[in-house]
């Protein structure tokens, strides 16, 4: 199944494939012609001693001509098949990668990054080996074997017919080897991976192993696995020794004996034996045993590649797509009015992380979401960004349900700033622009200036061309945030979705960030997750979430007056702020003066 599908990938390269195939045929043809020519030379010229210059030039010329054609065509076909394999794998990788781009975030939540990366790169690499093995090795070797037989038939039909017995012998040998080795090969691989897993685990947990004094026990356990691996390897070696090279050598000698007996008996019976034919047949036979060895050695590798292919196709057949636009029409976001109506949501289909969430953000307003970890703040943002499908309740933008908008419309009108500002490898400019070519260099600078990132960017040795390494590790977390702000401002969105960073940054950058945020929010509908309540006191609406529900709502003053959860959070945080600035007395008096003096009782 997987195998047939893999071969389907060859279709676009049919033309190139067949040309290479013809080259292979001709090259193999010339290869097997050489012994035939030599055979004719021996019988027609050497033995009868007809060595006039014309004959010599004739044979020598053909010989040398073939000798030039064969390597050139072989070079051509070898490269062609390699090139085809490369392009096929490129296509396969592109397909998997493209597929992954359109999968929903729910898929990424479930699948570890490492295994996805491995599917796209390592598994496809293993499949590449399959193409190269099949195309270069199997095809060539089989063609060669066929060619040798054709040449033998040309030299001596009867003997060639006798030699056909070799084919079932080879087939049986290969089948036996495949059957025996696949099992052992599997054991070798699994023992090796067990051993490596044990080693890896031991290295990582060595302090525990030592603290619990289990060193010698684990050494024994590792030694046991090591021994089992050795036993499997030796078994593999034995199968190899019994069925591969030594076996084909024995078969080849037996065939040689068959050949000289065939001619010998003719000779003894008084028939005329053509020495050249004998010579040619021996030479040809010498060429078919190595191909058999080659194919047998590729067998286990091929089986491995098919396993990889199955994994890749499994990913290609994945249907957990990101939510897509529904219905016709192309609504446009003009004002940025956001409305949640009775939205409930669950990631796993069992536990609701959001329960009946309803609120409205009028154009230009700021709505802040507060609550502790796991209260559902991020889920609201995930739904608004259409990372997950809304199944219960509706989210509307400008009165139109979210699912009616096209991806382009949503992505160009909604700007998301994540808590962990993700930077890509490239430079500062490319991180602000991303791949959006509508954004001019001028716009990039404007966006950077707008969020006050320009001051630090211009101080960089290469300014906007400063290289950004993996994950932007050379930048401070504050700088990374400013760059992420600039990135969002460069698309000038109608709606701003903020996930405020909890990471602490130095005071100077912190100030820049706060000023930038204030400027960014102006004139835009903003949905913001706030960790520090001090930053959202001017929000039009604050939603306090607890276990997926909105437990309190209102503006800062109203919520303080309620003296509920928000109030306690505020106390906690203002206490923290004040403690840090060493104004402990003020903080404590503020807390202790709170009416429901929570410290009176013990929890």
């Amino acid at each position, binding site marked *: 199944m997987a195998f047939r599908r893999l071969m389907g990938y060859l279709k676009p390269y049919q033309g190139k494939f067949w040309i290479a195939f013809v080259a292979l045929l001709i090259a193999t043809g010339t290869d097997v012609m050489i012994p035939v020519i030599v055979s004719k030379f021996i019988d027609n010229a050497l033995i009868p001693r007809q060595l006039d210059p014309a004959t010599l030039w004739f044979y020598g010329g053909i010989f040398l001509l073939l000798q030039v054609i064969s390597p050139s065509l072989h*070079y051509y076909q070898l490269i062609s098949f*390699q090139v085809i394999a490369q392009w096929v794998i490129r296509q396969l990788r592109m397909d998997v990668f493209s597929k992954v781009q359109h999968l929903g975030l729910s898929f990424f939540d479930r699948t570890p990054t490492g295994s996805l990366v491995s599917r796209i790169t390592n598994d496809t690499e293993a499949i590449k080996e399959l193409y190269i093995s099949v195309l270069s090795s199997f095809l060539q070797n089989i063609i060669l074997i066929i060619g040798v037989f054709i040449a033998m038939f040309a030299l001596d039909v009867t003997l060639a017919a006798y030699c056909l017995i070799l084919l079932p012998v080879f087939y049986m040998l290969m089948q036996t080897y495949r059957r025996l080795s696949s099992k052992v090969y599997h054991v070798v691989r699994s023992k090796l991976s067990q051993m490596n897993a044990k080693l890896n685990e031991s290295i990582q947990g060595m302090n*525990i192993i030592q603290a*619990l004094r289990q060193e010698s026990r684990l050494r024994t356990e590792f030694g046991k696995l090591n021994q089992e691996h050795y036993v499997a390897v030796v078994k593999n070696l034995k199968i190899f020794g019994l069925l591969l090279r030594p076996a084909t050598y024995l078969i080849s000698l037996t065939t040689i004996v068959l050949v000289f007996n065939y001619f010998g008996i003719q000779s003894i019976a008084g028939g005329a034996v053509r*020495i050249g034919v004998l010579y040619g047949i021996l030479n040809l036979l010498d060429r078919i045993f190595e191909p058999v060895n080659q194919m047998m050695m590729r067998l286990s590798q091929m089986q491995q590649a098919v396993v990889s292919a199955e994994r890749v196709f499994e990913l290609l057949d994945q249907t957990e797509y990101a939510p897509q636009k529904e219905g016709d029409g192309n609504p446009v976001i003009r004002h940025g009015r956001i409305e949640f109506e009775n939205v409930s949501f669950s990631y796993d289909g069992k536990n609701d992380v959001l329960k009946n969430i309803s609120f409205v953000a009028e154009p230009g307003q700021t709505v802040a979401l507060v609550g502790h970890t796991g209260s559902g703040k991020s889920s609201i943002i995930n739904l608004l960004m259409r990372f997950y499908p809304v199944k219960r309740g509706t989210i509307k933008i400008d009165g139109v349900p979210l699912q009616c908008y096209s991806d382009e419309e949503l992505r160009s009108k909604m700007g998301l700033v994540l808590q962990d500002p993700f930077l890509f490898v490239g430079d500062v400019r490319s991180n602000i622009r991303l791949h959006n070519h509508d954004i001019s260099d001028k716009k990039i600078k404007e966006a950077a200036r707008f969020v006050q990132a320009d001051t630090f960017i211009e101080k960089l040795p290469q300014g906007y061309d400063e290289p950004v390494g993996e994950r932007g590790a050379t930048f401070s977390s504050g700088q990374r945030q400013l760059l992420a702000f600039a990135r969002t401002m460069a698309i000038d969105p109608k709606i701003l979705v903020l996930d405020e960073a909890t990471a602490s940054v130095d005071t100077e950058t912190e100030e820049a960030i706060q000023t930038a945020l204030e400027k960014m929010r102006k004139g835009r509908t903003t949905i913001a997750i706030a960790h520090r309540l001090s930053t959202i006191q001017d929000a039009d609406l604050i939603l306090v979430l607890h276990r997926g529900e909105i437990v309190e709502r209102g503006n800062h003053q109203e919520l303080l007056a309620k003296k509920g959860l928000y109030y306690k959070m505020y106390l906690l945080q203002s206490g923290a702020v004040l403690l840090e600035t060493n104004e402990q007395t003020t903080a404590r008096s503020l807390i202790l003066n709170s009416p429901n003096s929570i410290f009176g009782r013990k929890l």
Partner: protein
Amino acid sequence: MCFLFYGGVVILSIFRDLWWFFKKEKKSYITGIAALLLLALLGLLPPYAIRHVVDQIAAGSLTVKDLLFWSVLCIGVGAASYGLGYFWRIQLFGAAHRLGQLLRNQLYEHFTKMSPSFFHRHRTGDLMAHATNDIQAIATTAGEGVLTLADSISIGSVVIFTMAVFIDWKLTLIALIPMPIMAWLTNYYGNLLHQRFHVAQEAFSDTNDKVQENISGMRVIKAFGQEEAEKKVFKELLDDVVEKNIAVAKIDALYDPTIILCVGVSFFLTVAFGSVAVVDGTMTIGELTQFTIYLGHLIWPMLAFGWLFNIVERGRASYDRVQKLLSMKPDIQDQVNAIDKLPTGDIQYQIRSFTYPGSPTPALEDIGVSIRKGETLGIVGKTGSGKTTFLRLLLREFDIQDGVIRIGGCSITDYKLHRLREAIGYVPQEYVLFSMTIKENIAFGRPDATQEEVEEVARIACIHEDILEFEHGYQTVVGEKGVTLSGGQKQRISIARALLLDPEILILDDSLSAVDAKTEASILKALRENRANKTTLIAAHRLSAVELADQIIVMDEGRIVEYGTHQELMENDGWYRDMYERQQLESLVLEGGA
């Protein structure tokens, strides 16, 4: 020539370094190499037989007896070669695998002896690479390396000698002209291939990084609608990979045609000059046939010779890396005359200063604490204040430069390391479980513990009920291939694991951070009941974990800043009280403010 000299030096040096192993496996190597030599000699016979049959057919003098003789000879050679071919593989390759096995065991044993600082200096991935790839390369040197050396020398010399001495030395010289060219060319390709392969690998690793980045940044990509653009970038990277791999293929594809061409020219020269000799009568047609077959036998030794250099060069580098690792000494070792007695009694910390190796600033300074036997000590403070260091020093994961820790009056360095560790039950901050069953994990330090004993400590650690809920109960496998446990469950299993040892001293290094307040309280209660007269050290972020300790130290930047019982510290207007009040409020908020 220079290359040959350099290659020769490498071969000599690596084989000299592996000499101890060759000596140890004397029998395998001597018999294996003897088998190879015998095979090289036996290989001469079938062409010899063919020559006679051909000549006798040409002369019309072949008899049934002759034919039978040569047939039996060839079959005999075939059978012997089959046996010998099997034999040397088992001998040589078997020995090579034993070397791999031996080195892996050595390395593993070495790892178990190394101190934590070793594992800080070396990344897991690097250590794994040494234990897998490097050992593989060394084993290949001891197997394929020996084979290619023995084969290229034995077959090469035996065949050339026979051709020159028994057939025709002039023809031998002529026929061999293309062979050194072939060896030189394949070696030249080898170098080019190596370079280009390296470049192609880098391009491949770029795509790997890109995929990694793409998947990690998927949220941003989706939020900015960058999917198509990402595809374009990936496509460009793939084009680059294709281009560089084709550059590799262009060299790789040269091997076969070069061999075909060189062997073909050699063959042509043989037939051309051989025919002249046959016509002159200095050579029979049978001899010419024999000669061309021998020529075919020379291809492998030529290729093996080129291959040999590759193998030993890699083996040399790998052997050096593995030896460097094996020669490292553990930082922490038993003293001469170390006390072979279980440490017990009061614990005294008297540390003037302790600095981690390679760190510019001390991690602990002026630490003086006494813990009486049976007491509980609480250690609190901010992240990075030195709590974990304080505990790790008691385990002797590092030795103190200036100061001493005593148990029962003797410095911990005076005890045998094994005895010290026997006295301590350690629950580390980062919960380390192994991929085995839950029961085996709990019984990790005492594999012979009964099910009852395991269950008893699981109850104390409040994990028994959780375990029973798993499909296979105590037999549930933990880890990648098994059930995923929550952080709190892992912590409690770690605690049970330490409790099973019923240690003199129990160390909990922030081991209750992921369990809820109620469970924490019941674990602490159970601990107090079960550990009468035994010492417990608890480091914690949540102060409720140390509230009932006999004494509490508050650490900051490696120093003790506050000290006393919970009551005393609450009266004190310091960090402890601030923190305690904040945490009370926090837990209130977590409960929804009720």
